[in-house]
């Protein structure tokens, strides 16, 4: 907390006291707002997409008898890979001239869609987000699949006999039983959206020209590339302050649902 009220450059052992200057500067810094906007996109896309895709995959594999272990391993593997390795490999995939993605698009006659995915400010953030979703999906899949194993199959069969279609069975029978677990996973992915740093840093470094900067990468650059340790610390504090209420709300919701008897 001390460092947010001084102007520490990493060298001066007696940094000057600046009070709330770091906060006022932060509020007026257009780069902070651009990074915050990217964080919001990341939080929304990076939370909803892995949840939907992970749940969908888990439902597909749920009733499988053969090959279930293989599927679990295959889908969970990206989650246990180091983010740096994922970032490097996906950077190759997105590479404009030799990358698999552009080559695949050209092979199916969509050459006009090819671009420098990580160097184009219109696509860079979504390209990195796509990679992050791919990596996070396995985690959601494994946890939801474990929860589905405890779902009361008799209730599902009964609802089918009563005429409920697949969507109705999911909404009224399956989801209520796995809701506490679902909320827990949602909380973890949501909080990850606030603190995202590594995969963006590896894949784009926040570029081109700040197009993929989020608060985490901007804080890092401020602290360690511009030697504005205090400004970076203030940004880090803001990230924490923003994330905590979400964590508390989600945690309370999960407890409330558990107490109401929801969950498998």
């Amino acid at each position, binding site marked *: 907390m001390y460092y947010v009220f001084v102007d520490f450059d*990493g*060298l001066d052992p007696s940094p000057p006291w600046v009070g709330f200057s770091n906060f006022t500067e932060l509020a007026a810094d257009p780069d902070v707002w651009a990074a915050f906007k990217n964080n919001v996109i990341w939080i929304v896309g990076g939370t909803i997409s892995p949840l939907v895709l992970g749940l969908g995959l888990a439902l597909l594999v749920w009733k499988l008898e053969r090959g279930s272990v293989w599927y679990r391993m295959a889908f969970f593997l990206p989650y246990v890979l180091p983010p740096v390795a994922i970032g490097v490999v996906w950077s190759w995939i997105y590479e*404009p001239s030799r990358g698999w993605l552009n080559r695949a698009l050209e092979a199916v006659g969509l050459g006009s869609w090819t671009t420098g995915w*990580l*160097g*184009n400010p219109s696509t860079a953030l979504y390209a990195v987000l796509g990679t992050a979703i791919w990596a996070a999906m396995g985690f959601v899949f494994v946890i939801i699949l474990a929860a589905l194993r405890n779902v009361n199959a008799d209730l599902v069969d009964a609802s089918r006999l009563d005429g409920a279609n697949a969507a109705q069975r999911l909404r009224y029978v399956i989801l209520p039983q796995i809701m506490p677990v679902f909320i827990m996973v949602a909380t973890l992915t949501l909080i990850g959206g606030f603190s995202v740093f590594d995969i963006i840093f590896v894949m784009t470094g926040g570029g*081109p*020209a700040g197009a993929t900067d989020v608060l985490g990468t901007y804080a890092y650059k401020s602290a360690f*590339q511009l*030697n504005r340790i205090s400004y970076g610390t203030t940004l880090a504090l803001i990230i924490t302050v923003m994330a905590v209420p979400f964590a508390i709300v989600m945690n309370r919701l999960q407890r409330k649902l558990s107490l109401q008897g929801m969950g498998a």
Partner: protein
Amino acid sequence: MRLSPSRIAAAAACVLLTACTGQTIEPTQDKSDAPAGKGTSIRWLIEEPEDAAALKALKDHVATFEKQSGIKVETTTLPFDTMRTVLQTQLRSGEGPDVFNWGSGPSFGGALIEAGLVADISDAYDKHGWKIYDFAKERVTANGKVYGIPGEMETIGLFYNKDVFTKLGIQEPKSLDDLRAAADKVRASGMVPLAVGNKEGWEGGHLLSMALSSDVGSESVESMFGGEKSWNSPEVVSAFGLWKDFNDKGLLPKSPTSVDYDTSTSLYFSGKAAMIPTGSWLVGEIDDNAKFESGYIPFPAPDGPGIFTGGLGSGPFVSATTKKKDAAIQFLNFLASEDHGRWTVENLHTIPAQPIKAEGLEVSPLFAQVLQDTAKFSEGGDFGHNIDVMVSDAVNKAMYDGMQGVMTGQRTPEAAAAAMEKAAKK
């Protein structure tokens, strides 16, 4: 125009004085229990070389010093970006390296010197008579004291594939118009004209440096370092605009901001690109990887052949808090020796900032040319400036973002130049 070290030093001092106001820590005297010599161990921190074989060769070479002196040198490496972030912390903690290799510009060694984290080695210069070029020595001098040994000399210019030029009937470009015409011809043949990658951002600094230096000359660029002239000037706008124009006309790889440096060099090595604007540090890799002959020229100016951009790389400094200063100085004496200089020329393809006898050196024709070019440093030839070692981190960030921005359409050349000036004024 002449290289003007005093101006560079003045500019550096200006930036330093405005950037740093911290208290200094008193350099520790040598308190080692062990005398310098047998049984002493020192830690040497260097930037991670791109080539693992080069690191092994360097360690083997340092082993000759260990054997001769009895001083053990523990060589450790860090990636450049990591080193930039942890070096200050390590030095301040007192647990840092005894000797470390770092850049000599204001935002590199200069900032550490100002913070009192680097030992004064003026006496060692007097005692050992190290023959470092004066202009280079000035880069590591502050308040009349010398703090390090400047690193290898580098030039930045334009490599071109001679075989492709011959095949397409292209002459060596002597002006920007020649370069444009050559690039158009190369593009028409289906090859990439200029292998430019600007994903990391720092490459953009070199692109701006070479275009600007060739256009206006070294003195004009120096005046921007000192603040006498604004970065927000028509010349800087024009230099940004040049690369935007090249990109818009398809003379660079598709989406250069998606292409990292290693990919850009591999485009050149593989013969898929006819030219690459980069530094003399690439000569070794060109010799090893390219199956064609390369030429190396300054980046052309609008009205002539232009000038090479010159700079100094990383060199050794001694930590102010080392308890083994005598051993560290002995090691520096080894690193400053002509024998070590010749070894680096032949094995690492780097050029020390001191006179080296060319006789008997086993180097490629391309590297021999680079050696001749850099020798003109000491003869007062006009060399442009690599901007990023001479300006603050904030100006660098504005420059890197600016070049990426003009290539992607996020920024105009005018906005990029204005952002650099704004950062310089902070």
